[in-house]
Structure formats: structure tokens, C-alpha cells
């Protein structure tokens, strides 16, 4: 779709707050989003919604625009056209509501001798709760310790972040994303670089936290298997939307192979086969 055929629409302000009933509220709504970077189209015609307490898996091959999609939701990249509504607001209007959004980036390229402890890193997540020109209060310190506890890192809070293993660092960044009043959790390939048991443990922890804390999750990954087991819905993108539906429908679709440009067995493992066709594309 050419960008000229698309129009910008305003969010229906108040939609999020006026809605009632858990599970029905639309927290994120993307409608025909078109994004360019450096004059090149990166995302075209992206349309999906994230409802309250939903686990949405976003899959796609490397370079599909998955990270850009998260950056659009966070307001770090502005779409050329289409509508992005987060909690009923455009991302650039979210200033006062950012404490409801937790973000775990794909990689944090920090110096291994950066002199901050696990506690200090998690405290960074409280920055939008503390406010400008203010210092952390008792409530902030308690929130940090609670987050460290729920991700299973109690006792390591004084450790230097660079001394932790990759799996532990991922947990620290998850704790940082959770130590605010998080309602929406955006994760960008948080299991990349982890071995299979570590991936499984991270996913189990995430699923448990989602239920306990009532989170709505957008989980970006190129790994179909990881998400198919945990997501309520899946979206497959490769610059544009290829699939959107229940995990069983997405995994069983031939359009998944088109998006990844490789054989089905390479994506979901040998022997696994589904006859279902796609959801909507």
C-alpha cells in the first residue's frame, strides 16, 4: 500500500479510561500504520490490537521491523501515516502515563565495569515515578526491592550488573520494567542469547508474572516455538502484516513460510505439522 493512500487518524481520547470490564479494554491499537526510516518503508499496513491481560506474540524474521514496531508504540519512532493509540492516547501524549509501560530492550550495550548494582539498575525504572528534581523515597526503594524479589534475584541486589550472567541480566531488565505501575509490558527478544533451559525459565517466569500482576504483554521474537507455547494471539510481520490469529492458526499457516522465506520444519521443528490455515493477514 502506498503511503499516499493512508491517512492519519486521531486516537479516541478517553476510550481506555471509559471502557469497562477486564479483558475488553483495548490498551494498544494500531491501525494501518506505515513507517519509513531513512526514506525506506520499514512497516506497512500494520493493524492489530492488544487487549487487557493479553499476551501478544509478534514474530517475524530478522530485519522484519519488529523492534521498530515497539519503538513506534513507545513513541520513539513516528509513523508516516496510520494511527497508534496506547491507552487511548497517541504515544507522544503519554508523558504522564509512561509509568504504566515497562520496556525490556533487545540488548543493552553497557560497559561491563559500569559501576551500578542490580538495585541501581532497577531503580532506573522508577525514574518516571520519582519525577524530575526529586530523589527516591521509601516507596520507590520498596518497589525496587519488590521487583528484584519477584524476578528471583533477591540477595543479588548489591552485585555489579556486569558480573551477572546473561540470564540474570535479563531478569534485572525485567525487574526494571516491572518496578513502576506497569500495565503494559513490551519485550524485545528478551530470550535472545539464552540457552534453551534459560529461555524456558524466563518464559515460565514471565507467564507467572503476567497472571499475578495482571499484565498485558507484547513479546517480540523471531523464535516461533517460544511464542507459540505462551501467546494468546500472534502477529507475524515482515515489513507488512502476514498473519494475525491464535498461535495454532499462525503456526499452521503456509503464510508463515512466506514471511520467513524458509521451509515450515525449520520454523517449528521437524515432525511438527499443522493443517490449519492462516488467520487474517
Amino acid at each position, binding site marked *: 500500500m502506498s503511503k499516499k493512500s493512508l491517512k492519519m487518524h486521531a486516537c479516541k481520547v478517553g476510550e481506555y479510561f471509559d471502557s469497562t470490564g477486564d479483558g475488553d479494554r483495548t490498551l494498544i491499537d494500531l491501525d494501518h500504520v506505515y513507517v519509513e526510516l531513512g526514506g525506506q518503508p520499514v512497516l506497512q499496513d500494520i493493524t492489530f490490537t492488544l487487549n487487557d491481560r493479553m499476551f501478544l506474540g509478534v514474530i517475524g524474521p530478522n530485519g522484519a521491523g519488529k523492534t521498530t514496531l515497539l519503538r513506534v508504540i513507545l513513541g*520513539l519512532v513516528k509513523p508516516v501515516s496510520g494511527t497508534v493509540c496506547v491507552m487511548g492516547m497517541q504515544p507522544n501524549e503519554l508523558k504522564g502515563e509512561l509509568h504504566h509501560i515497562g520496556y525490556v530492550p533487545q540488548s543493552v550495550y*553497557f*560497559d561491563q565495569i559500569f559501576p551500578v548494582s542490580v538495585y541501581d539498575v532497577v531503580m532506573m525504572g522508577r525514574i518516571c515515578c520519582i519525577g524530575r528534581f526529586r530523589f527516591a523515597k521509601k516507596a520507590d526503594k520498596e518497589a525496587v526491592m519488590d521487583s528484584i524479589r519477584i524476578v528471583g*534475584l533477591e540477595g543479588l541486589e548489591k552485585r*555489579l550488573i556486569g*558480573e551477572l550472567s546473561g*540470564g540474570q541480566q535479563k531478569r534485572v531488565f525485567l525487574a526494571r520494567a516491572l518496578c513502576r505501575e506497569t500495565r503494559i509490558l513490551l519485550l524485545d527478544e528478551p530470550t535472545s542469547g539464552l540457552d534453551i533451559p534459560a529461555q524456558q525459565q524466563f518464559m515460565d517466569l514471565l507467564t507467572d508474572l503476567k497472571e499475578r500482576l495482571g499484565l498485558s504483554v507484547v513479546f517480540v521474537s523471531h523464535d516461533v516455538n517460544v511464542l507459540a507455547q505462551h501467546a494468546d494471539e500472534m502477529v507475524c510481520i515482515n515489513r507488512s502484516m502476514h498473519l494475525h490469529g491464535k498461535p495454532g492458526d499462525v503456526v499452521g499457516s503456509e503464510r508463515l513460510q512466506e514471511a520467513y522465506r524458509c521451509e515450515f520444519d525449520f520454523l517449528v521443528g521437524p515432525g511438527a505439522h499443522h493443517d490449519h490455515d492462516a488467520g487474517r493477514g
Partner: protein
Amino acid sequence: MLSFSFGRTALVGGILIAITCSLMSFFIIVRRLAFAGMGISHAAFGGVAIGIAAGVNPIVTAGAFCVAVAGGIGWFSRKGKLHEDTIIGILFSASMAMGVVLIAVAKAYNQDLLSYLFGSILAVSWTDVIILGVMAALAVGFMVFFFKELLFFSFDEETAMASGVPVRFVYYGLLVTIALTIVVSIKLVGIILVSALIVIPGATGLQLSRNYRTVIVYSMVTGVLSVILGLQLSFSFNVASGATIVLVMFALFLIAVGVSPRRTYMQTLLARLRGPAAVAPDESMPATADAGLAEPDAGTPGD
């Protein structure tokens, strides 16, 4: 030293500079801006030359010029047009070249220029100390009021941005603060040596601690101690104050490297001093950078 009026002004001015530069040094080290600091300080030569050639106070022109260079470094690197080190290399050498040409055209190779290059304790007046105090208050104020934003931005810029940290303001604010601090420090240590003041204290602190709070304390102690000892030695032996301060700072850095708890022999020594019951490494200073850690629960992933 304190019996001379110029000794007192130099000491007060030097301590103000040391406090400002040492606090800034922490961010320069963790944000890896050491080359930017060096580039801005050397670019100050161009600004000083403009002032000398135009007959204006060189510190004023150097201040404006350094802020412009800092802004240029920030703009080019943020826009991704050039790597940060590339643009620093270009602006730094071009500024110095411009300075040389201007000085030659204005026929201004004199003692005054040398004092800007290498610093002159005699050149520091009470007026300079007042200007230094105002600048130090502004720079320290910026770093204190935006400390958590600067720390978050230095550690993980993208997530800081996603959390509402005004990353652009913080980045340019830090560069401008570096530029202005460098300019006001020129009179004491000179253009050539000022970059040492914004790099060595932070590097020394990082050798002695892994907690940012104590890194900053050690950094400030290094800066202030270097200024006091350096000025006293320069008075006693009648040598250039700026160079002496930098050499004292370098000596403190070498001592810190030698006694750093990161060194294996220091860990062994500390363990022996604590006795057999305290062989386990101190929590505030873990044994080694690559030390293995007990996982929080059985089977927790490790890389």
C-alpha cells in the same frame, strides 16, 4: 603558598575546578566521552586565538567556540551522519589549525598565548575565581539535578528515552557543561592539560570502587588532592602549576591501579588481613570482573 595572594586565589579556584571536573569526570568515563573532552579542550585553542586576534577577552571567545564545537559534536553524532570520534577528530584538528593561522596573522605569539596553552597560576585573579564559582555552581547544579537522568542515559539510552528522560537535553547539556568547565579551567592548567582533569579523577575512582557513589567520592578526593599537592609542589620547586597538578593526578592514578581491589594480589592480601573467616569477597567490591556467581535458584540460566 597561602602567604601569597595569588596562591590563595589559585588554591580556591583550583579546588572549585577540581570539584566540578571530578564530578563531570564520572560521566565522561562511564559515557566514554574522554575523547570528546580532549577534542573540546583542544578546540579551545581556536576560540582563544579568535579572542587574541580580535582583541576580545579570549576566555569569552573560547567559551562560545567550545560550546559551538560541543554542539557540533553532538549534532553530527546524534544525526548519525558521522561517528562521534570522527567528528571530534575533524573539529579538534580544524579548530587548532584555525588557531595557528589566526595567531600567525595577528602576530600574537607571546607569553599570554603560552599561559593559555599550559596554564599560569599568576593569571588567576579573584574575578576569575568568582566566574569559576558561578560556572562550577551551574555545572554541579546541572549534574546534581539531572543525576538520575544522566546515569540512566549513560547506562541505557534507549530505555531512558522510552521512560521519558529528555535524552537530547541531557546529552547536549552534558556536552555544554563539559565545554564551559574546560574553558574556565584553562587558566589554571591550560588547554593542553585540561583534559587530564576531566578524565583521570573518574578513572582513578573506578579503580578503587565499583559503586558509583564511592567512585564519585574517590574521583573528587583525587581531583582536590591533586590540586592542593600540585600547587604546593609547583610553588616549592618553581615549576609550571598545571603540569605539576596533572603529574600528581597521574601518580594518584598509578597508586590506585596498584592498590585496586581488582588486582588479584590485593584480593589475596585483603583476604589474609581479614583472616580465614572472611575469605569471601566483600559485597561492595566483588572479587573479579568475571567472577562466577551463585545462581539465585537451582538451574537458573547462566551464560
